[in-house]
C-alpha cells in the first residue's frame, strides 16, 4: 500500500516536473551529446525507441585519439568589451517601530511596512586598455515615500600594470574601510546594514571621489596596505564634512569651501592580512582608519578606527560551496572633535567645544547548512558617550538578527530576517523582513 502511494506520488511529481524539464535543454545544438538531453522527453513516450535512436545518433565511440581530433581549426573570438549586470533587491516586511527609518538607517535597508525596492543597480565593467580596468555602479532606488532616485554609486578606473606590486584606483568608490563598507548590498549576508556602519558612515556608506593606492607586500602570506585620499565633503562622508552631520554634533554646520589644502581631505589607510590556518580554514584580519575634517568648526577633525576579522571553514569536498561556517566581526571607534558651535535648533545656545566618542561592533555567524541554504545570526551594539546635547544618532542601541537565506542558484536569493532592536531611550521593537533578489547579465565573481 505504502509502495503504491509512493509511486503515485512520484508519478504526480513527474507530471509536475515535466514542464520544467522541457526547458532544461541546451539550446538547439548539433552536438551528439545534445541529442541525449533532447531525447529524454521522447523517452517518456517510448524509451526503447529512444535508446535505439540514441545509439544511432551517438554512433560508434570516437576512434580518433589524436590531439587534432579534439582540436578545432583555430582560436574563436569570445566575450565582449563590457560586462553588464543588473541586480534588484525587493524587500517586504513589517516592524513595530513607528520610526522605521531610525532603526533601519541604511539607504538600502527596508524602511517601510509593506514593500520597497531599496536597491536596483546596473554594474558595468571591462578592460579599458592594457593599462586600466573600468568599473561603474549606477543605483536606482525607490525611497520610503515611493519616489524613484538615481545615484552614481561608483565609477572608477583601476590600474593593471603598475610596477612594485602597486595598484591605483581613481574616481568615485567605496572606501576600503573594514570588511562590509566596500561591499554592495546584494553581497551582504543580511538584509540590512549593521548599525555601527550607518552610525559611522551614514546611510550610503563611506564613499567619495579620490584616489587609492594599494601595495601587495612581499611577505610570504597575503598582506595588502592601502591608503585612499578622498574628498571629505558630501552626503556620503557622514562623519566628516557632510551636510547632514548636524545629527552628530547638534550644531549649525560650518559651511565653507575646501580651503585648507591637504588638511581638508579625507585619508583612509588600511592594512589587511590573511592566513590559511588549515586546508579548509582561512582567516582575514584588517585594521583601518579614516581621518579628516568635520564641519562643526573651521578646524575640527574626526578620527575613526576599525578592526575586522573574517574566518571561514569550508568542507574539503564542499558541494556548490556548502557546507561552510563563517564568522565576520567588525568593531569601530570614532573620536569626533566638535568645535564650539551654535545649536542647530536653538541658535541662541552655544554648544561647547567637546570630543564626542562613539563605538560599536557587530558579529555575524553564517552556517551553510546544506547546498544553497544558509542560516545566520548577527548580534550588534552601538554606544555614544554623553555629549552636551541629545541626538538619536548617538543613542545606545542593540540588535539581534537571526536570518535564513535560500539561494535557488547563484543568480537569485530569498531571505527572511527577524530583528530585535532595543533602543535605550525608546525601548524594544520587532521587525520581520523578507527579501527577494535577482541578478541578470554578467555576474561579478565573489571576493573572499
Amino acid at each position, binding site marked *: 500500500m505504502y509502495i503504491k502511494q509512493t509511486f503515485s506520488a512520484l508519478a504526480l511529481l513527474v507530471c509536475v516536473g515535466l514542464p520544467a524539464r522541457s526547458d532544461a535543454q541546451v*539550446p538547439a545544438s548539433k552536438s*551528439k551529446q545534445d541529442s541525449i*538531453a533532447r531525447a529524454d522527453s521522447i*523517452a*517518456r513516450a517510448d524509451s526503447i525507441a529512444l*535508446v535505439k535512436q540514441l545509439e544511432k545518433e551517438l554512433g560508434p565511440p570516437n576512434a580518433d585519439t589524436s590531439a587534432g581530433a*579534439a582540436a578545432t581549426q583555430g582560436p574563436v573570438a569570445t566575450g565582449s568589451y563590457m560586462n553588464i549586470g543588473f541586480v534588484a533587491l525587493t524587500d517586504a516586511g513589517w516592524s513595530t517601530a513607528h520610526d522605521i527609518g531610525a532603526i533601519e538607517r541604511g539607504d538600502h535597508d527596508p524602511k517601510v511596512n509593506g514593500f520597497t525596492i531599496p536597491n536596483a543597480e546596473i554594474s558595468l565593467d571591462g578592460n579599458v586598455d592594457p593599462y586600466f580596468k573600468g568599473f561603474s555602479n549606477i543605483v536606482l532606488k525607490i525611497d520610503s515615500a515611493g519616489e524613484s532616485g538615481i545615484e552614481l554609486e561608483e565609477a572608477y578606473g583601476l590600474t593593471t600594470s603598475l610596477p612594485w606590486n602597486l595598484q591605483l584606483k581613481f574616481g568615485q568608490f567605496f572606501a576600503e574601510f573594514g570588511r562590509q563598507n566596500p561591499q554592495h548590498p546584494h553581497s551582504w549576508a543580511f538584509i540590512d546594514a549593521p548599525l555601527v556602519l550607518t552610525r559611522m558612515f551614514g546611510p550610503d556608506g563611506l564613499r567619495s571621489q579620490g584616489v587609492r593606492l594599494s601595495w601587495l607586500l612581499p611577505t610570504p602570506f597575503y598582506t595588502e596596505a592601502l591608503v585612499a585620499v578622498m574628498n571629505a565633503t558630501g552626503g556620503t562622508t557622514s562623519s566628516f564634512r557632510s551636510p547632514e552631520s548636524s545629527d552628530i554634533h547638534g550644531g549649525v554646520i560650518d559651511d565653507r569651501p575646501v580651503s585648507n589644502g591637504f588638511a581638508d581631505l579625507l585619508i583612509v589607510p588600511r592594512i589587511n592580512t590573511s592566513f590559511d590556518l588549515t586546508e579548509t580554514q582561512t582567516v582575514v584580519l584588517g585594521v583601518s582608519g579614516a581621518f579628516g575634517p568635520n564641519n562643526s568648526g573651521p578646524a575640527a577633525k574626526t578620527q575613526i578606527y576599525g578592526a575586522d576579522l573574517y574566518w571561514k571553514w569550508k568542507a574539503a*569536498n564542499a558541494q556548490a560551496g556548502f557546507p561552510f561556517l563563517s564568522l565576520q566581526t567588525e568593531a569601530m571607534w570614532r573620536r569626533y572633535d566638535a568645535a564650539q558651535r551654535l545649536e542647530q535648533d536653538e541658535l541662541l545656545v552655544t554648544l561647547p567645544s567637546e570630543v564626542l566618542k562613539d563605538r560599536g561592533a557587530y558579529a555575524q555567524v553564517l552556517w551553510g547548512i546544506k547546498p544553497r541554504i544558509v542560516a545566520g545570526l548577527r548580534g550588534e551594539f552601538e554606544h555614544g558617550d554623553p555629549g552636551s546635547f541629545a541626538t538619536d544618532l548617538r543613542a545606545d542601541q542593540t540588535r539581534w538578527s537571526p536570518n535564513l537565506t535560500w539561494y535557488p*542558484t547563484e543568480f537569485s536569493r530569498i531571505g527572511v530576517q527577524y530583528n530585535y532592536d532595543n533602543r535605550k531611550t525608546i525601548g524594544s521593537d520587532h521587525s520581520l523582513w523578507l527579501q527577494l533578489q535577482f541578478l541578470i547579465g554578467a555576474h561579478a565573481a565573489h571576493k573572499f
Partner: protein
Amino acid sequence: MKTTKIIKMAALSLSAISFISVQATAQLKVVATTPDLASVAREIGGDRVNVVALAKPTEDPHFVDAKPSFIVTLNRADALIEGGAELELGWLPPLLENSRNSKVAAGAPGRIVASEGMRLLEIPTSFDRSKGDIHSLGNPHFMIDPAAAKVVARNIASHFAQLDPKNAANYNANLARFDSRIDAKLADWQKQLAPYRGAKIVTYHRDFIYFAQRFGLSIVDELEPKPGISPSPAHLAQVIGEMKRNSVKVILVQPFQNRKTAETVARQTGATVIDAPQQPGAANNTSSYFDNMDNLVRGIAAALGGAR
C-alpha cells in the same frame, strides 16, 4: 690575515648560496587552477617547473573560494594554467585583478588557457539561464578525454617554450613522451571499456560527456535537472523511471556531489553508485593524471562489469 681569510670564505659561501638560490629560482613557477592541469604541467615541465594547483582535488572547480593566499601565489607566478570555458569564472577574476602580475595577464605568454584551440561540446547557440548554468564557451569538463589532455599538453608545452626558450627542446621532448604515453594508455583504457560499449550510465552533472563520447558510453540523464541546478524530487522520479526503462545500473558521482541523492536513486533502481573523481589526488594513490585515469577507467569498468 685571518680576517681576510674569513671574509673570503664568507664571500665564497654567499656566492654559493646565491648560485644555489638562482638555480632554485630558475624553475618556472607555474600555477594551475585544478590538479589535473597541474599534473599535465608537471609531465611537460619536469624538474624545470614548480607547479601548484589552487583547487583541491575534492573540490568543485566551479566553486573555489578566492582565498587571499591565492593572490600571493598568483602574484609570484611565471605562468597560470586555467581550464577556460568559464570553469573558473566564479573565482579567478578577482584573484587576477589583485595579483598585479603582468606575466599572467590575458594574452601574456604566461597565461595558458588549456582549452584554447579545443573543439568543445555543447556550445550554446543562445544564452538563457532558465536552462541552467550553461557555459557560453562550451562544456568545460574535457580533461577526462585523453585526446583533450593532449591538446592541453600541447598548449602548455608551447607556452613553456616561449617562457623558457633554453629548455624548449626538453619541453617538446616531454610533450612527445606524454603523447606516446597517452596513446599507449588510451589503448589500454579503451580495451578495458570495450566490452561495455553502448552501456548506459547516469551522472550527477554534465561532467562526463567527453569521457562518454571517447569510450562509447551512453549517458541517459543527469541527477541535476539542468546544469548547476539542485536535483528536485520531480526530476529524480523522472530519472528513476528512465533508469528502469533503460536498465541503467551505474551512477557516477564526484567527491563534491551529493552521494546521498545518488544512493536514493540507486536504491530505487538497483543501480550502484560509483565514486568517479576527475581530479588526481581525490582518490588514494592517484597523484598524477595517468593514475587518476587508471583509477577512473578501472572503477567504471568494474562497475559496468558487475552490473551485467
